[in-house]
C-alpha cells in the first residue's frame, strides 16, 4: 500500500543543470570562468536558483 503522504508527490521537472562556475580549491569557493567568485554575480545566483529553499532538498531536508 502506498503511504498517504506520497499520494501528493509531484515531479520536480528539474534536470541536472550545468552551472557556469566551478570550485576553486585555493579560494575554497566557486568561481566564474573569468576567475571572479560566483557570489559576486547575484543575478546569476538568482537565475540558477541554487540558493533557494528547495535547493538541495533531494539530499537535505533542512529547507
Amino acid at each position, binding site marked *: *500500500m*502506498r*503511504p*498517504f*503522504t*506520497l*499520494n*501528493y*508527490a*509531484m*515531479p*520536480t521537472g*528539474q534536470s541536472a543543470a550545468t*552551472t557556469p*562556475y566551478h*570550485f576553486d*580549491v*585555493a*579560494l*575554497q*569557493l*566557486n568561481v566564474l570562468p573569468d576567475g571572479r*567568485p*560566483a*557570489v*559576486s554575480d*547575484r543575478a546569476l*545566483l*538568482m537565475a540558477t536558483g*541554487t*540558493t*533557494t*529553499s*528547495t*535547493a*538541495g*532538498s*533531494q*539530499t*537535505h*531536508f*533542512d*529547507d
Partner: protein
Amino acid sequence: MTVLILTAEQDVTADMVVAQLHERGVPMVRLDPADLPGKAVLSADYAHGDFDGYLSVNGHVLSMGGLRSVWVRRPGEPAAHAAEPSPWLTAETRQALFGMLYSASTRWMNHPRRAEQARHKPWQLRVAHSSGFAVPPTIVTTAPRVAQEFVEEYRDVVVKSASGPPPGEPPVALPTTLIGPDADFSGVAAGPALLQQYIPKRADIRLTSIGTRMFAARKAAVPGQVDGRFGDTGHAWEATAVPGRIARSVHEYLVLTGLAYAAFDFAEDEDGVWWFLEGNQGGQFGFIELETGQPIADTVAEWLSQRRPAHRIPEGH
C-alpha cells in the same frame, strides 16, 4: 584559529560566508566529508593523556588545537566519494571525523546532536508550544480513522512530509498540499501522515536567526496559496520587523533546542498573527539575502569568527 566548514563543493550559499571570512581575514578550511578518505586526510592522536588531530584537504591544513568553530552546512555522507564506498566505510569514517571534532574544544553551528533532534518536525511543534508560538493544530498518525476525524474537525487541512521528499530518480517534490474530507485515508496505515490545520495567510514569513541576531523577511501571498516554496506569486521577499513577542519566542526556542542557527517559517494570517510552521536547523538563507539585502552571510561569518571560550573539556553544545 581556523573555521571549519563542512559542506559540498557546489554549495554556493556557503560561498557567501566563505567570501565574508576571506574579507575578514579569518583562516578557514572547507571540507566535504564525502571526500574523506581520498582527497581529504585525517589523523587524530590520543596518547599520553592528551589529544590532537589534523585535517587536510586541497593543501589546506587544520589542527584541532587551532579549531575556532565548525559550521555544519550541507555535508555529504562521509566516504561517499571513496573509491569503494560502503555503509561500513561511511560509519568508520564518521567515527573518525566526528569523533575527532567532538574531542576538540570548539563552537558548533549547529552541533550534530542538537541538529539531529531539531530536525524532527513533531518535536519542533512541542518546543514551539513551550516557546510561546502560535502553532496550528497538528496530528501525526498511522491510524486512518484518526486522520479522517482530524480532517472532519478542522476542514481545511494540509498534509506535509516530516522528512522531505523520498530520494531517487526522477526527483519528486512533496509540497504542502490541501486535502479534503473525501480523501482516501487508507494509505495512512502504510506510513505516518502529518496533517495540520491550514492557516489562510496573507504572507509567508522567513525568520533567520544566528546567535542572538534575527532577520525577518515577508512575502505577500496570493489567495489560496498553500506552499510558498513552490510557484511564482509575483511577490518578492522584503525585510520586515520582528515583533517583540516573536523575538522572545525565538530566543526561547533556541535555548530549548541548543541551536546557534535556525530558519523559521511562519504563516501570517489576516489578523497579523505569525503561526509557527517549522524551524529548519539548516535552512537556506541565500535567497533571502539576495532579495532583501539583509547581511545574513556576514552575520554567520561574524558568529563563526568569534573566539571560543577557554574550556578544558569539549563543549557539548
